[in-house]
């Protein structure tokens, strides 16, 4: 294979990510010696001599490059170092965690495939239509929300299944469902959206006319649909690694995700390095397997790029649905904003909904409605800032498609939660860190969209005409290229706002984002879990709000595909003219 710009940036980004993991102890800028001393012997005074001894012991006095070299050297020998907190080898803990997580992900993948099959079957049977809408809804529900709700309903209220631990198959059911249902929704949606267009192709008509059985046609249609979607399946599998962190935390499953999160919170950086590296490898391995499967399925058709799918037909809900969702959310938030989210009233702890507290109160007697409203304001504010940042990055990189593609590959292989863990470990948990983490991985789809539009505009004859009249590159860029690209990409970014808010909430839920007493939605859900049997409303309010947000993300997102082409009337008639701007 010839080295390409994309391949180069891909390798470079991978090296940067791995180096960032290796340099975590140095990047975090805090003195790890104190963490280690506290963890090892709580009663020892943090004197200068004691801290120096720990530093020497850990090899921290050598500086960043030596540290990186040491870590990389150990890595090659299969030595991941020693945990700062427990003093034990990291590798065995990582392997043990990985075994548990792989088991969980395997079952979750089975759940996902079964669910996807159930969602796709009606489309195949009816031969048209789509179950895509419902599937999209399932795909948008974040794992941490589903896990919490499943835990409440099946574990706590109904008492059917154990809520925590990892002893037997009964422990696996709820985590696998929480992890597998969103993934299954995503797979099901991708296939169900792509199928109707394929079933309208001429060969299907021909086969039907020739009396080929429905089973055979369905199998052929699936075989036609699946290969181009395999890379997206790979991304869904990568998403499982991120979802595993949340699900394992909720159900106290001793997997690699929970190990990573615990290590990040206790500043146990060697353990964190080991587990993040394992998660990263898992993500990259899944991506590689997906690419391999695609090559096997397609064969030579891949080289000729001749097997493109007809454009998918996502089911678009009536415009009133997203509008209603938006109005309900906005009104609740507006009402909550008028109230005080920090007023503690110990006399009214965990009060049921009433006239004074329409959504009840939490464990400190704070008004849930007020906290919901103020939480939304801060989440939406942060999400808007993240959106703007990823829009700018996406637009800038849209002009450098080679570089953007390589970087996007790596960004796609990193679920937000894992980036959040890394950023939190380096900079400490906080709203800013969470925002940076989400921004780091939310730009690739925008950059891809921008790159497609830039390519389209640059190939058009009217840009050539601009150069012919003597326009400067600056005039062409500001009057023609940017206006054609910026508006559709900005609209796309706006529609991604709810999804970005959900990613921020999931980081808040895991304690990697906003810190108490800030009223952030994910944090609200996390705080209320402890009292859920006495005050279900405190958990229900943020859960319902998050579900509404997820629904808004789905119903709004189907509107992105409008106005993809610059003009409906213009058909490419002439040859494409190479133009450099």
């Amino acid at each position, binding site marked *: 294979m010839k080295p390409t710009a994309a391949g180069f940036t891909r390798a470079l980004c991978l090296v940067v990510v791995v180096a960032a993991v290796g340099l975590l102890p140095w990047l975090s800028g805090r003195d790890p010696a104190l963490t280690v001393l506290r963890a090892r012997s709580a009663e020892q005074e943090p004197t200068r001599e004691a801290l120096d001894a720990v530093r020497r012991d850990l090899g921290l006095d050598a500086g960043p490059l030596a540290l990186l070299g040491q870590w990389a050297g150990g890595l090659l020998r299969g030595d991941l170092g020693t945990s700062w907190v427990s003093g034990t080898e990291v590798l065995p803990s990582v392997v043990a965690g990985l075994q548990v997580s792989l088991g969980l992900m395997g079952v979750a993948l089975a759940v996902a495939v079964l669910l996807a099959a159930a969602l796709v079957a009606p489309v195949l049977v009816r031969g048209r239509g789509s179950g895509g809408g419902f599937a999209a809804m399932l795909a948008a529900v974040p794992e941490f929300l589903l896990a919490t709700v499943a835990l409440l309903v099946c574990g706590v209220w109904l008492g059917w299944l154990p809520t925590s631990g990892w002893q037997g198959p009964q422990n696996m059911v709820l985590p696998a469902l929480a992890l597998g249902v969103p993934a299954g929704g995503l797979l099901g949606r991708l296939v169900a959206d792509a199928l109707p267009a394929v079933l309208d192709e001429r060969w299907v008509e021909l086969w039907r006319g020739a009396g080929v059985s429905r089973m055979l046609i369905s199998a052929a249609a699936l075989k036609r649909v699946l290969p181009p979607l395999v890379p997206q399946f790979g991304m869904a599998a990568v998403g499982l690694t991120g979802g595993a962190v949340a699900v394992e935390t909720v159900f106290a499953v001793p997997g690699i995700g929970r190990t990573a999160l615990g290590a990040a919170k206790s500043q146990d950086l060697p353990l964190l390095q080991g587990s993040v590296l394992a998660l990263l490898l898992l993500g990259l391995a899944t991506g590689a397997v997906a690419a391999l499967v695609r090559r096997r399925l397609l064969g030579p058709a891949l080289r000729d790029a001749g097997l493109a799918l007809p454009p998918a037909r996502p089911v678009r809900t009536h415009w009133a649905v997203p509008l209603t969702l938006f109005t309900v959310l906005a009104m609740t938030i507006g009402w909550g904003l008028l109230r005080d989210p920090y007023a503690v009233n110990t006399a009214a702890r965990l009060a049921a909904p009433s006239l004074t507290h329409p959504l009840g109160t939490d464990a400190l007697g704070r008004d849930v409605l007020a906290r919901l409203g103020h939480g939304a304001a801060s989440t939406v504010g942060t999400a808007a800032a993240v959106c703007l940042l990823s829009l700018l990055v996406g637009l800038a990189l849209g002009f450098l498609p080679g570089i953007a593609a390589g970087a996007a590959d790596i960004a796609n292989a990193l679920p937000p939660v894992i980036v959040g863990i890394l950023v939190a470990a380096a900079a400490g948990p906080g709203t800013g860190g969470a925002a940076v983490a989400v921004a780091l991985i939310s730009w690739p789809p925008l950059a891809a969209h921008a790159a497609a539009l830039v390519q389209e505009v640059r190939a058009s004859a009217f840009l050539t005409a601009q150069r012919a*009249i003597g326009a400067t590159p600056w005039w062409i860029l500001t009057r023609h290229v940017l206006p054609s690209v910026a508006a559709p990409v900005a609209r796309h970014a706006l529609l991604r706002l709810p999804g970005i808010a959900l990613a921020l909430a999931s980081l808040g839920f895991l304690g990697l984002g906003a810190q108490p007493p800030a009223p952030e939605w994910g944090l609200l859900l996390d705080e209320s879990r402890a009292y859920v049997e006495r005050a279900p409303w405190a958990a229900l309010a943020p859960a319902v709000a998050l579900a509404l947000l997820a629904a808004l993300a789905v119903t709004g997102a189907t509107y992105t595909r409008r106005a993809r082409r610059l003009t409906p009337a213009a058909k490419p008639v002439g040859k494409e003219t190479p133009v450099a701007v």
Partner: protein
Amino acid sequence: MTPLLDVRELVVRYGDFTAVDRVSFPVGAGETLALNGPSGCGKSSTALAVLQLRRPDAGEVLFEGRELTTLTERELRPIRPRMQPVFQDPYGSLSPRHRIRDAVAEPLKVQGRWNDTDGPTRVAELLDRVGLDPSYGDRHPHELSGGQCQRAGIARALASEPRLLVLDEPVSALDPSVRAGVLNLLADLQDDLGLGYLFICHDRAVVRHFADRAIEMREGRVTSG
């Protein structure tokens, strides 16, 4: 007398592939030279290289006696308006985001010849000159027919006050019923303004009717002329 355009030994390569191989021809003022040949023979590459929109790999392009291939982009900019292209795809050659009026006014603005009192009148004159009612200026390209769009494209080219038009299959994407109208317009403009035309075409009937001289291209080379 020096011709308006004199192309000598022009070469255009794409990687290892030589699209235009040592092509030479002159075009005089008020003259139409047809460049004829099957698709893929290098006609359009020649057009782009003459206009310096794709810099040729070798050879000379003398325009009004001045060698263009050695000029920098900055030095070319004041010369560019005097040689204007008209493209095959009438819709693609106009920005879908801008009104016809703005597209025709843009050369005036880019070349610093726009002022708010005379500018709009000049645009209306140009539209009228190509046979479009000035009220069409308010429309967007997708609200016009292919023939009307091509007329607007010609109006934009005229706005730069060119001496040479490079017509890259200007009528081949149009409906046969409107081809004659556009060709007659081009002939009238040539008579009135003394323009030189490099007319790229693959339709021999049109060539016979329209061109003063014709050369034939095949696989990058001139085969007759």
